[in-house]
């Protein structure tokens, strides 16, 4: 069911002879959205009504205030959640920093082990070839997201 607040018929009537412009706004159904129904009181005498109404523009509009409400609330809660999570990370940061940074990432890798190729743990870590490949990426990342990434990689290494 449509909320009664969510429909309106808005008539804009420009200045006519000596009557100044006026905006009329009423909650009526689409069928009744005509100048004759909405413009009340009619500022002109009977024989001028047709000419006056000709100049007016009536538009029927609908909205959904519920959609607006829900959207705004969802938006605010997501922003809030993100901010809280960020704060949490910032607060926990000093606590974690004391621990060995290398033991932490394993938590992730264990989860994903089974779908990853089993070779992942057998590969030597400090491989020079890999390092060279990584070099280019590192250069890129520095150039593109320098500053941003610093913060972010730092966090990752210390998680």
């Amino acid at each position, binding site marked *: 069911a449509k909320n009664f607040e969510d429909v*309106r018929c808005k008539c804009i009537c420009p*200045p006519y002879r000596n009557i*100044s412009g006026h905006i009329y706004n009423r909650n009526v159904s689409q069928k009744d959205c005509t100048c004759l129904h909405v413009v009340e009181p009619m500022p002109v005498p009977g024989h001028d009504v047709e000419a006056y109404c000709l100049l007016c523009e009536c538009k029927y509009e609908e909205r959904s205030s519920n959609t607006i409400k829900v959207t705004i*609330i969802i938006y605010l809660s*997501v922003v809030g959640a993100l901010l809280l999570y960020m704060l949490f990370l910032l607060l926990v940061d000093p606590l974690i920093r004391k621990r060995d940074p290398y033991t932490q990432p394993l938590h992730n890798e264990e989860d994903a082990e089974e779908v990853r190729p089993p070779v992942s743990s057998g590969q030597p870590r400090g491989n020079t*070839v890999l390092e060279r490949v990584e070099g280019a990426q590192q250069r890129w990342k520095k150039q593109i997201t320098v500053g941003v990434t610093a913060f972010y990689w730092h966090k990752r290494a210390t998680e």
Partner: protein
Amino acid sequence: METSGYLSNSFDGLHSNDEDDDEMVDIAGATLDFSSSDDVPPLCSGDFDEFSSRRVSMNGHGPSQMVDPLDDPLPGVGTYEDFNTIDWVREKSKDRDRHREITHKSRESTVALLLRISDAFSGWLLMLLVGLMAGALAGGIDIAAHWLTDMKEGVCLNGFWFNHEHCCWTSSEPTFQERDRCPQWQSWAELFSGTSTGALAYSLNYLMYILWALLFSFLAVTLVRAFAPYACGSGIPEIKTILSGFIIRGYLGKWTLITKTITLVLAVSSGLSLGKEGPLVHVACCCANILCHLFTKYRKNEAKRREVLSAAAAVGVSVAFGAPIGGVLFSLEEVSYYFPLKTLWRSFFAALVAAFTLRSINPFGNSRLVLFYVEFHAPWHLVELAPFILLGIFGGLWGALFIRANIAWCRIRKTTRLGHYSVVEVVLVTGLTALLAFPNSYTRMSGSELISELFNDCTLLDSSQLCGYKQLPNISDTGVGNTLGDRPAGEALYTALWQLALALLFKMMITVITFGMKVPSGLFIPSMAIGAIAGRLLGVAMEQLAYYNHDSLIFKGWCSQGADCITPGLYAMVGAAACLGGVTRMTVSLVVIMFELTGGLEYIVPLMAATMTSKWVADAFGREGIYEAHIRLNGYPFLEPKEEFEQSSLAVDVMRPRRADPALATLTQDGMNVGEVEALVESTHYSGFPVVVSQESQRLVGFVLRRDLLISIDNARKRQEGVVSASQVVFTEHTPPLPPEAPPPLRLRGIVDLSPFTVTDHTAMDITVDIFRKLGLRQCLVTHNVRLLGIITKKDILKHMAQISNRDPDSILFN
């Protein structure tokens, strides 16, 4: 510490196979529970069985039936590393194999037949989902951004979630002159001091405006930094590169989507000179990429996924401008690399669904998809083409200037220490923008509202400052219809013109330093705003000229007294198109977008004249649009499909190894052992190796990728008994006779591409470049009388092209 972070990250990258775009989840979302549900995709339950059966055939006890070299026998084989280019031919061939298998199976059982049908329709279903999701997100972004923008001004007492317009929705208080004033909406000054006029109220409002702007932009940049650095910028350059076959993991992931959606609203609301159109394309692509995970067909195939992403780019523009056809053409002209007809239909469908979804959400409450939809059908005269072409020239000059200035500024940001202070930069620029924007009403309003006001034609119903013409005594006699003849400009209009001129200058300056900051930022709206201001100024000037000289030679024929012969709103529209064209170098798609905005075909010729002029003028100063310029600035491996290759070099001039270099590193089809192969692989950094019959003859057998080789050897060492460094590596179909005491050979024919692309050394480079572009190759082997000479990779071509145009070839960073 940083280095170790990089390494372990890239190491993950090398071996990740299924969860290709969500690496960020492991990092930022460690404690959220996304990762586990995503790493094992819901539709891929049979992974384990497949794995073991594949292993058997892999190690080849028994006759190997692998005639198809592109079968992927191991998880990880056939995938790509981060920041690498895909091989389109291989991917498409993989998809055809898949399809063939399904077709084959479907003849056997009804279930398989149903699977086949669902597979055939999964593309359309995916498009439907993408359209729905992107439309819904765009609607949400529109509503939230509107609300937050008005938040800088005041608050609604009816319900805090209403923006200014919706707050006064049912109120009958607004008058003809002040259409947006109603008691329910309270500006901050009214709320705090109780008064809405006077110096105190003004300064209070000014202060609140700046404070909110600073808060929004600070939040935006912090969230981007914390959760998804990839969410910054417009995203179109990167999407262009991704669509051309590059891989940037996480660029279209969940975290990027969430962060971009949230921060886009904040950035737009903060009043910065940026728009939401470009980022909406990125958001739509993120949606598409995430939804691709639901369908095996698209999850596992990089080429198929890029088809979906092309369609998603169309969806993004479709919801940004309410222009489904324009969106499809935008994707075709500007973004996409591989755009088959099937994608054309599908992207059109998705764009329509998205536009429909957005319309049913109705974010602006007027059944329009964009704020600045216009509807006028005033005719134009052939003489007016001259000012339109002038606007085109202005647009072209501004486009060329903007690109140079912006690239110079971005280069400074990249190379100096400024880049380290992105948060400070964003906050400072926002503060400056807010400080300068508030006093001028045309900069205070949001970009879309400004464009909407400039596009609007003055009818009797309008009361804005821009319609401040002198009232003529005989106005009510003009009779039927709402259009008005030309009138002399009044006081209000002159004020408005001054303000517009100042706004133009301000926008031109601030946009240069805004685009490229670490917040989501689109370029369409600021460019269009600049063009619209310039166009409107010229339009009003023409109108007044016509009014005061309606008897002169030029105007006589069509501008009689009292006739409505010049429409300033049309000039604004043409100016907007010209500036946008100058910056992005779009032509057809831009005209179509503008024409969908106006809903009439009457203005195609003016728009076309302006955009074409703009493109030609801008091209005279530099061939690249802003997106190509940013791609090159970032050194992405992007082979521009529009650019013609002019040089007469031959393949032999471009290929590696050069004359002075050591010989090409090749593998022989038999005779090498695991240790030798590993040593060769580790002593070089090539991403693939040709396999030859023997080192002496250099007769080509096939090509094997480094990644596949490494994964296969490592896997064999772990899982297969008896594979040691001395085991022979065999790439032939039949194992050659071995001495009885030798360890069992390692058979790797399955990973060899037996049909690598070859060209002869005499092939002209222009043909080679054409082959690379059209087939989407990653590398190509060079032969002479069938003797293998060398190899050409995409990177070699890009370096060669950079060298030709006197650029630094080392600016190309990736394969």
